[in-house]
């Protein structure tokens, strides 16, 4: 009767106060049958990585609308490496200019979802990143 559930950390690093996107994604992942750990606004990179470590997160989703995604993501990637957590998939939502995408991907961000991304796309990406949806599940 083993029942593994993906544990997804949804965090909002940085100083912008717009958490609607993060909440909508958190809710959608919950409805897809995942366990979502929601940490709220104004998280420092240190707080995000500490929470992911304590919660044994299977993936980390960041929502950043402030334009500060490059330094924030870089710091988070460094902290993940320092904690031997580079195996935890990192995905990103928000306003991310196209020219930043290749650099972010090079740093190890596996999914980047802009304003046009569909929820199905995000959910499918996460199931894939954590090893697939459970059999019989229609996500």
């Amino acid at each position: 009767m083993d029942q593994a559930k993906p544990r997804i950390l949804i965090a909002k690093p940085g100083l912008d106060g717009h958490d609607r996107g993060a909440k909508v994604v958190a809710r959608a992942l919950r409805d897809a049958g995942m366990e979502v750990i929601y940490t709220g606004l104004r998280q420092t990179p240190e707080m995000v990585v500490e929470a992911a470590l304590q919660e044994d997160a299977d993936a980390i989703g960041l929502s950043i609308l402030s334009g500060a995604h490059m330094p924030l993501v870089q710091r988070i990637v460094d902290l993940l490496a320092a904690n031997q957590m580079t195996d935890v998939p990192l995905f990103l939502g928000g306003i991310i200019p196209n020219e930043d995408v290749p650099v972010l991907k090079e740093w190890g961000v596996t999914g980047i979802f802009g304003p046009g991304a569909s929820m199905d796309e995000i959910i499918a990406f996460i199931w894939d990143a954590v090893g697939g949806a459970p059999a019989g599940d229609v996500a």
Partner: protein
Amino acid sequence: MNDLLEQVRQGQIRAIARLITRVENSPAAAEQAIQALYPHTGKAHVVGVTGSPGAGKSTVVNALVKTLRQQDVRVGIIAVDPTSPFTGGALLGDRVRMRDLSGDPGVYIRSMASRGSLGGLARATASVIKILDAAGFDYVLVETVGAGQAEVDIANAAHTTIVIEAPGMGDEIQSIKAGILEIADILVVNKADRPGADRTVRSLKMMLHLGPVGGTRQSGRISSPPTASQNGAAWNIPVLETVATEEKGMAALAEALGQHMAHLRQSGDWVKREKERSWREVEMLLQERFMAQFQASVPPELRDSLLTAVAERKVDPYTAVHQLLEKSESKRKG
């Protein structure tokens, strides 16, 4: 597994986090882990924090743990939130209110989904408490799902149960109903700066028969402090007022917690509670085992046809149980 267990005992956060996930996901892993760790448990003081949704449980935990951390103690927090009965997913949001605790190496926070359990905890919570205990945390705080009236499992898992109320949640009849208020060792009226707090405190005190109502209020505490009692003496349940968002009343709450710990030790209630808790735990495991054995011993077709018959009003539920048990017995004997 053995390496992981050793790292857990050394208090390594990654190992603790991984072991908790395994124990949550697999009863077999839980059995193996608890068999190995059990001799190293029994040192932590387990504190349950319960109350209705929105009463301020997470905020009280945040402020209380900050206060406890002024002493040299390590604190593990298990925050349980409900699993959706429809999708199996969960939104675990207790960390939002505990942001002051991040960056503190003496605090470990773990969010847990209830995964279908109805008593306010998850099935694996008892095992997770033991993992944190064996990892050397001095206190393990367990925050239940937002509880109504009947979610009282926490009282069987904790040494001290704190029940949190907020003003304006119902009239005096609510406070004399059976259930959650009965399990409190410490009662907290949070959001005590809101209108109606006095009334809530009065009705709780009335319920507790704590003497005259409307006593003078000062610095967060309104009832006289509980005194560590003599051997066998009863514990006087304190009613405390807090404003957790402003960290008001936390020193009094921490003090009451310390007094209850001392009371448990001195009165012999500690041993009694540990024995009761142990029995509940063994009983629950027995139920699970019996149920698994039973299910393995009855052909699914028989169960299905009997359930259909009950649904169609051809067989009553009691007769169905008789038939299932007979079948199970004969299968096990044969």
